[in-house]
């Protein structure tokens, strides 16, 4: 076998191979075939990631399931894969979300079905690549390759202002990541010709270049997360993207940025990370508080959830840059939980949008009277988004706040306001959309969830609740890599 039998290879290439198959076989006349093939691909892609979880050694340090093959020998670039607990969870989340997205778009997408499904399958494979790459150039290639399918997804199946949103998304992210490329090439030169992340981890660097490299990396990752003030592409992209696109954007793509901080910035330039941590924390807190307030006044449901994503991702960056085990572990749990919750909320809005074709809060009211099952599930996700104990949203936020108290009480105090604002904007939106008298005849004519929608939302509800009441399966794979990372970051590279 060309790539050798490695589960990570399968996790990357199965979705891509099925994406090609969907493109080749599918046409709009035969959309059903395309959907079935895509579903098989997505389920298979998820299935091969499960043995990664069961076979993962929770106590071992370093990377597991590694695969190594020379790729571009002239520049000593290798196709080097491997995961630790952090990437493991993200790969699981990604493959799981892909299945949901394929099901969620089942009847909704009627135009160019095969291209739509293939884009998501490509995206899924490529993002698994980002999460498992141990070579800096491989990481970069996968990181950038996510742009093309997402650009197409937003631009072809998006809303009325989709062209603007697609361009903004693409150019913003490209602008951020181009300087990262320069930084990587710089590292290649100072490390005597290596693109291996493991070599970079050991590479001593003076503080000045560390800071330059940190800033170059940060531009890429901050745009992707997105951090205040480079978050402005996200509301546009989310609002215009089709439901599936919003789900993948919020659930996975935003995590690429945070993952970049964890996998690239922190271990390669630890001293610069410490030096500039205050700056990043300040930006994170602004995101948490200010963007939380911005979310409060949104009239468009998708925009509200988009801003809520920015605010919640502020928690993630905060947790990463306070450099303690609670913070970092909380940040990663928050990433996963936010993946479930924001994905679920976007799907909920998608359910309403498919029926009434409006995302404006003002067009709804009294939905509970016609869609009780939907209202119950939506309630769960809204509560989870506000961080209610017993849901996954609580675990991550609680850990991060606990970590923040250790670092500085005022960080924690500012971050904790999100529990108020988050509840305010989510529940207020929920109240206006779901409760009250039936607002107009269109709401009165709504039909409740069909089996497909129920399946998707039900699976997510299960995930949110499981993670809320029993987070240990998620947390146990994180302890070793988190401690390893913190020990590494604590050692100065200024030699």
């Amino acid at each position, binding site marked *: 076998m060309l790539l050798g039998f490695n589960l990570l290879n399968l996790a990357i290439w199965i979705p891509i191979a099925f994406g090609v198959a969907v493109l080749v076989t599918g046409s709009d006349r035969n959309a059903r075939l395309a959907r079935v093939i895509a579903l098989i691909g997505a389920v298979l892609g998820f299935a091969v990631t499960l043995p990664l979880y069961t076979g993962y050694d929770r106590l071992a340090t370093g990377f597991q399931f590694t695969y190594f093959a020379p*790729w*571009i*020998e*002239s*520049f000593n670039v290798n196709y080097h894969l491997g995961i630790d607990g952090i990437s493991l969870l993200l790969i699981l989340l990604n493959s799981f979300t892909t299945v949901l997205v394929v099901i969620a778009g089942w009847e909704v997408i009627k135009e*160019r079905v095969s*291209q739509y499904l293939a884009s998501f399958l490509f995206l899924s494979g490529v993002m698994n690549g980002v999460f498992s790459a141990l070579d800096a*150039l491989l990481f*970069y*290639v996968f990181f*950038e*390759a996510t*742009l*093309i399918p997402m*650009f*197409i997804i937003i*631009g*072809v199946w998006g809303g009325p202002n*989709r*062209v603007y949103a*697609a*361009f903004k998304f*693409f*150019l913003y992210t*490209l*602008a951020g990541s*181009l*300087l990262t*490329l*320069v930084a990587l*090439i*710089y590292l*290649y*030169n100072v490390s005597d010709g290596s693109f291996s992340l493991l070599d970079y981890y050991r590479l001593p660097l003076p503080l000045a270049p560390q800071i330059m490299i940190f800033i170059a990396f940060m531009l890429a990752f901050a745009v992707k997360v997105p951090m205040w003030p480079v978050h402005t592409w996200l509301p546009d992209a989310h609002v215009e993207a089709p439901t599936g696109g919003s789900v993948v954007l919020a659930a996975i793509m935003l995590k690429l940025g945070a993952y970049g901080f964890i996998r690239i910035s922190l271990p390669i330039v630890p001293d610069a990370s410490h030096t500039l941590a205050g700056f990043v924390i300040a930006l994170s807190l602004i995101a948490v508080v200010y963007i939380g307030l911005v979310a409060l006044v949104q009239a468009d449901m998708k925009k509200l959830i988009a801003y809520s994503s920015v605010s919640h991702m502020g928690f993630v960056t905060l947790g990463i840059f306070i450099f303690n085990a609670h913070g970092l572990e909380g940040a990663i749990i928050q990433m996963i939980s936010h993946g479930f919750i924001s994905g679920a909320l976007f799907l909920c809005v998608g359910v309403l949008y498919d029926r009434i074709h409006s995302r404006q809060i003002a067009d709804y009211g009294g939905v509970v009277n016609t869609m009780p099952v939907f209202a119950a599930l939506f309630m769960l996700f809204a509560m989870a988004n506000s961080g209610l104990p017993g849901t996954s949203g609580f675990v991550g936020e609680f850990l991060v706040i606990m970590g923040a108290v250790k670092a500085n009480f005022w960080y924690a105090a500012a971050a904790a306001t999100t529990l108020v604002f988050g509840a305010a904007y989510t529940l207020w939106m929920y109240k206006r959309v779901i409760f009250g008298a039936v607002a107009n005849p269109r709401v009165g004519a709504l039909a409740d969830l069909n089996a497909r929608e129920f399946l998707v939302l039900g699976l997510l509800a299960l995930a949110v609740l499981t993670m809320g009441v029993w987070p240990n399966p998620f947390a146990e794979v994180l302890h070793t890599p988190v401690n390893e990372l913190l020990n590494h970051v604590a050692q100065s590279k200024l030699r």
Partner: protein
Amino acid sequence: MPYITPLLPAYPEVFLLVMVCVILVVDLFLSDDHRIVTYALTQLALAGALVLTYVTASAEPVTTFSGMFVDDLMSDVLKLLTYIGVATMLVYSRAYIAARGLYRGEFFVLVLFATLGMMVMISASHLLTLYLGLELLSLSLYSMVALQRDSPVATEAAMKYFVLGALASGMLLYGMSMLYGATGTLGIAQLADTIFYGGARDVVLVFALVFIVAGLGFKIGAVPFHMWVPDVYHGAPTAVTLFIGSAPKLAAFAFIMRLLVQGLGAEQLVGEWQQMLIVMAVLSLAIGNVTAIAQTNLKRMLAYSTIGHMGYLLLGILSGNLTGYGAGMFYVVVYVLMNLGTFGMILLLSRSGFEAENLEDFKGLNQRSPWYAFLMLLLMFSMAGVPPTVGFYAKLTVLQAVINAGYVWLAVVAVLFSLVGAFYYLRLVRLMYFDAPADTAPIAPRGDFRILISLNGLAVLLFGILPEPLLALCLYSIQVSL
């Protein structure tokens, strides 16, 4: 030693010249209905030259004609790619030129003469052979631009091209004459030796260098010597634009290698031309990419994008080390590959009486033909340098060389302008994918066209996933040739 051996390195050139003469004569006796014979003979001539070049290729440089002509690995690789480029261009152009009354013997003979010129340029190791090759190429190109003689745009373009090209040739010649004055030799190897051992006056050398760099700048269309590029690209029949934009860039690269690197690569001179190239590269990147945004005509847009790409090529060369030259070669090869595909797509959408040369003409291509839209998407993302297409690695290798040479700021400038560049390539993707089609004519190219353009587009992706073979070939051939 057998009598014929000294000619061995030049066999491909000799063969091609013979074939051109044969075609010229044979074509006289053919009626319009049998023009396919000329076409087939032309392809045969290229295939024959390809086989000969491949068979005589060796890693060891061999010179002949008293050291005026060299056959090294770099020249072999570049020549092989030239044949492939020209043959591809002929396949793409066939329907187009037939619809415009250019499907005549002259077209093919001029193409082959231009090819011969490129081959001579690529293999020249003497200022006279260099110039001979350059003029053979340029004169053929001037007349090809003017081939559509009833078109005022084409005539204007040809005139501009000729006047500015002649000016550039004059500058080159002037610079070369000064080099001769300073060193007393025209051979490139001897030139390098004389300069190395300090046998030349520096002031004269630097003056010569200025003229030579200006002449080279004209020929590759780098800012501030780029004025002719948009007009010629726009005015020439698309098939000819495709030709000008593809294989001759390979020859131009070889030209720069021979003249600047092999001839004037002595340490005290590298610093001089590096400065000039930095200015030209930065200006080309800036003006090429920024001006391209304002274009509505696709051919003009690609002309400005070419200027930007030439800026990247110069970046590779100015880093002044073997990796940099290898990166430059890789860049130019990739550029030719992408350019062939892109202009091939324009030819694909053009038909009798209709030039698909405006951006608008690509509207809704995804609905007309998803496959061709996908190929164009790959080409555009490759031009923009987005992974996983080969254009990314071309930019990567060049940036690596530049940073290795210590010019981190140049790399930063380059990536910023490639961000600007990404905008206008994306605009074409947007038209193809996001907009509804305005033109619904069916796209039904001939079988050979269809296969070749598909291969061309997929090559951009394939070399993007596995860039090593091509990259290693370029780096290795530069390494053993310089």
